């Protein structure tokens, strides 16, 4: 305790230090003056008076210093002194300082940038209170290989009363609704949620209220909560918005609340997060199917908040117990072979989407760049020893301790790294708006990325850590000088500097290896991307535009003007007819959202029930495999260039009242009817619940045709089974109009809107894009990763090239005398050149060897991100090595030429 008190006393005295010192000096000067005058009066000569006075007084300086050292903290004092000295040294060699600081700024700036993206996306994905309590509840049927099959209402009620959760809410995953009554019909994204949804998230409205958690209305409770963005955009932040009636899909809802600014819904895609309307519903009445235990709500997620203090593992165990007891209670609804289980997943994991892998890879890549920058600066620091060796030798000779020297050199390094880090952070901060625009829009949490205090903290920590690690070795090596040798200036390149030069060479080899690894990664990603981009999609996207419209789905189906497929068919045929009249349009077709190739985020999957399999047992619906099922008009296949292989396509005679037909692709034929002809086989697909109030038995659908496989789900995967149905037989609320021809993208949207609204003025028309755009958007995250890694690789190569240039220059400089001697003895200049080049290439070869080994490891780690190229791809490795060799050669060439041109006489005369 006493030492702590002493510490603080000294700390405060440190602040008062100057004051005391000045006073001492003044008083001592006064004393000496008085003593002198006394001596003069006693009769001494002025010189003698002064001398006697000083002798009697004692050593003033020593006294002052001793007092000073007792009073202050030598540690901090020395630190301040070191800092001042370091700043002076940095200013003394501005070129070196500039290069070092810029290199570090580059490395740390890039790393911090990626960190800020990771911070927003992976580390804090949930902007709600106590996010660790939030979980997603997922139902699986592993017995039939089905995951995420959806929950049923009675199960949800069981969850709520289980005591494991504070509350659980069912939520849609972002669907569309028409808002009519304003200037233009708007299509907006909404989520249907159980009324306790907002209390699960823990966020309250800024205006009005959210839904009443005890509201037990079975269907929609006709209340709507708006987002702040929508409130400001469409309603001008009207303070009297509460109670206003809005028409959503022709139903009247009343606004009860507005969510706060900056509130964003949870979800893994921007679409899910950009929900602007929330509708409360009980999921049990019209328009939902009756709440039976076996009728699962597909495309609905369940999020819940655990009881405080309950860990996920414990909660999962309780849940498993509940599941077991329910299985025993209701054996009919939970047949044993389905092996029904319920999983809890932390909500934070489900909202990061599929970018985690890409981001981690990016972080690894930028980490390598940082490493290379640090190595480069360490190299530069070592190179300075030859300049400062005399200074250090003199200081050691005068009695400086090794640790003191190391500390001082380390301070210089730390200062350098810190300055670089701050410069990098500042650059990042000021260019952040520009950089944000480079990021693809499909990155979740794009709006959350900000340069905040945490990011600054990260930059500082990285700077200090890098400075300590990479500054320590040069500092330690620098202090290990051979004193006499250096002071006597015995030829450079003597044994004293061997340790240093070897260290430098090791550093350069490391740099080269690291940049090779980065280049290989970039090369592989580039090839993957290129192959993906060039792959034949199986459909023809040229000159095709897709324009969306949305048919309202009012809660009461009897008020729906397009309730049946026949009614909708009238609209569709008219729209198609009018579309064909537009100039430039050669073909037109319609389809639902799943029919937009590569453009739908979550394809709806329906269970495929096959009529009789080999054992003659009909598969039950809750055990059936799930298949994607787009709905299209007959012209669709021809418009997109998807060829028919067997059987026939839809015709205009396939209507609602004729037998239901379907067209499958080759993948579906292979998967579900191997070695059989699928034509004529019958299946049953569970119908979409929207718009259907009765639980009528769906009819059997007959397969009439097989088309070739197309990559409509993912460019990387060709063999995904699909089953298509006709728009005239099975209505869909989402309608995408496909147009092929010489179209003017800017004009076509307005023209099409005109045509559609000529038929029905309440339909919104939006989202006009070419299929080419849709394709490239689907690749945008990949493209971004590739571009980033390529950028890093180029930077790394540049830095490595600089590193090798620096090292070879240094070696040449060190060996000037040796070269001069050789030249004087008759060596050819060409030989000198070759000697230096060989040195450089030796380093490059070592670096390449190490790099190839490292690159092989890394490429196998990132195999999941590659497409169409193996991790051991020889051409990539070979071409990258050649590029590295060329750069190394070029970097060696300049110093080699300088060596070649050494004038032996001048060099030998240099002292």
């Amino acid at each position: 305790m006493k030492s702590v008190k002493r510490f603080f006393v000294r700390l405060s005295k440190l602040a008062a230090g100057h004051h005391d010192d000045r006073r001492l000096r003044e008083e001592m000067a006064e004393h000496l003056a008085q003593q002198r005058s006394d001596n003069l009066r006693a009769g001494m000569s002025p010189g003698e008076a002064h001398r006697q006075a000083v002798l009697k007084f004692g050593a003033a300086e020593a006294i002052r210093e001793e007092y000073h050292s007792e009073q202050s903290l030598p540690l901090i004092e020395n630190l301040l002194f070191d800092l001042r000295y370091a700043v002076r040294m940095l200013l003394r060699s501005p070129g070196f300082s500039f290069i070092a600081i810029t290199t570090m700024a580059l490395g740390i700036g890039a790393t911090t940038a990626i960190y800020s993206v990771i911070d927003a996306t992976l580390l804090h994905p949930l902007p709600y209170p106590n996010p660790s309590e939030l979980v997603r509840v997922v139902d699986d049927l592993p017995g039939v290989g089905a995951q995420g099959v959806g929950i049923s209402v009675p199960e949800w009620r069981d969850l709520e009363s289980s005591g494991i959760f504070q509350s659980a809410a069912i939520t849609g995953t972002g669907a569309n609704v028409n808002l009519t009554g304003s200037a233009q019909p708007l299509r907006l994204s909404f989520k249907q949620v159980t009324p306790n949804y907002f209390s699960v998230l823990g966020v309250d409205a800024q205006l009005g209220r959210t839904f009443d958690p005890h509201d037990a209305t079975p269907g929609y409770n006709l209340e709507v909560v708006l987002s702040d963005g929508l409130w400001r955009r469409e309603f001008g932040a009207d303070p009297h918005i509460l109670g206003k009636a809005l028409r959503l899909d022709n139903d009247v809802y009343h606004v009860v609340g507005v969510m706060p600014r900056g509130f964003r819904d949870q979800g893994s895609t921007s679409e899910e997060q950009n929900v602007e309307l929330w509708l409360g519903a009980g999921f049990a009445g019209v328009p939902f199917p009756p709440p039976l235990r076996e009728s699962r709500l597909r495309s609905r997620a369940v999020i819940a908040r655990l009881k405080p203090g309950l860990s996920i593992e414990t909660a999962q165990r309780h849940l498993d117990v509940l599941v077991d007891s329910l299985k025993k209670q209701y054996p009919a609804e939970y047949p044993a072979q389905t092996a029904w289980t319920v999983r809890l997943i932390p909500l934070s994991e489900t909202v990061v989407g599929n970018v985690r892998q890409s981001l981690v890879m990016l972080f690894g890549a930028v980490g390598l760049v940082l490493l290379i920058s640090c190595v480069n600066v360490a190299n530069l620091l070592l190179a300075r020893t030859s300049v400062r060796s005399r200074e250090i030798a003199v200081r050691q000779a005068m009695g400086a301790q090794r640790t003191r020297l190391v500390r001082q050199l380390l301070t210089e390094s730390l200062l350098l790294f810190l300055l670089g880090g701050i410069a990098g952070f500042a650059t990042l901060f000021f260019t952040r708006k520009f950089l944000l625009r480079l990021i693809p829009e499909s990155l979740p949490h794009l709006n959350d990325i900000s340069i905040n205090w945490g990011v600054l903290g990260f930059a500082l920590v990285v700077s200090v850590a890098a400075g300590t690690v990479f500054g320590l070795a040069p500092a330690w090596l620098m202090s290990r000088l051979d004193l006499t040798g250096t002071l006597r200036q015995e030829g450079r390149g003597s044994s004293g500097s061997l340790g240093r030069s070897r260290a430098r060479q090791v550093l350069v080899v490391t740099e080269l290896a690291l940049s090779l690894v980065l280049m290989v990664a970039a090369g592989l990603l580039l090839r993957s991307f290129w192959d993906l981009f060039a792959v034949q999609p199986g459909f023809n996207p040229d000159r095709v535009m897709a324009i969306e419209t949305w048919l309202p789905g009012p809660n009461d189906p009897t008020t729906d003007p397009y309730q049946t497929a026949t009614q909708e068919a009238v609209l569709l045929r008219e729209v198609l007819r009018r579309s064909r009249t537009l100039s430039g349009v050669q073909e037109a077709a319609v389809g639902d959202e799943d029919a937009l190739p590569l453009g739908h985020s979550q394809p709806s999957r329906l269970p495929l029930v096959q009529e009789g399999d080999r054992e003659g047992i009909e598969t039950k619906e809750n055990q059936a495999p799930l298949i994607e099922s787009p709905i299209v008009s007959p012209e669709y296949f021809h418009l997109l260039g998807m060829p028919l292989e067997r059987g026939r396509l839809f015709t205009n005679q396939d209507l609602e009242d004729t037998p239901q037909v379907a067209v499958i692709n080759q993948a579906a034929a292979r998967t579900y009817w191997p070695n059989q002809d699928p034509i004529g086989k019958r299946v049953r697909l569970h119908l979409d619940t929207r718009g259907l109030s009765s639980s009528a038995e769906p009819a059997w659908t007959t397969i009439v045709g097989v088309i070739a496989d197309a990559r409509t789900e993912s460019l990387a995967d060709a063999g995904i089974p699909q089953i298509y149905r006709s728009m005239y037989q099975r209505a869909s609320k989402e309608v995408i109009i496909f147009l092929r021809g010489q179209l003017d993208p800017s004009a076509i949207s307005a023209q099409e809107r005109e045509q559609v609204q000529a038929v029905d003025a309440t339909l919104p028309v939006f989202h006009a894009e070419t299929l080419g755009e849709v394709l490239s958007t689907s690749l945008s995250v990949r493209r971004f990763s590739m571009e980033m890694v390529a950028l890093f690789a180029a930077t790394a190569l540049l830095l490595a090239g600089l590193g090798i240039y620096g090292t070879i220059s240094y070696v040449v400089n060190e060996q000037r005398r040796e070269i001069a001697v050789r030249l004087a003895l008759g060596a050819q200049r060409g030989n000198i050149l070759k000697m230096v080049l060989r040195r450089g290439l030796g380093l490059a070869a070592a670096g390449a060897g190490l790099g190839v080994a490292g690159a092989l490891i890394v490429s196998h780690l990132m195999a999941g991100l590659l497409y169409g190229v193996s991790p051991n791809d020889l051409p990539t490795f070979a071409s990258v090595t050649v590029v590295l060799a060329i750069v190394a050669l070029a970097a060696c060439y300049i110093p080699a030429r300088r060596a070649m041109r050494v004038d032996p006489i001048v060099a030998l005369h240099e002292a």
Partner: protein
Amino acid sequence: MPEKPDVLQGTLALMVLKTLDLLGPLHGYGIARRIEQISGDLLAVNQGTLYPLLLKLEHEGAIASEWGASENNRRARFYRLTRAGHKQLQTETRDWEQTAAIIARFFAAKGEDLA
């Protein structure tokens, strides 16, 4: 000339306090001269060490200082004893006298008294 023994640090403080107590406010040079006088030139005062000591005493609150004019009209710092310093002086005087008495008893003891 016999070697003048050095003064111990702790005792110098005591001397300073006593001097100020006897003679009232003095400046640094004055204190040094007086101590030299009183000790009868038997002590070699490393006079420079007086000043850090004066600073320390002032920080501790035993003495206080203020600017004033010295004999030849030079600006000097005058030190005086505070109440706390006075108490400290009394305590230390008592301690010294006790110590001196004990030591004297030991010096005066003869072997036969201790049986």
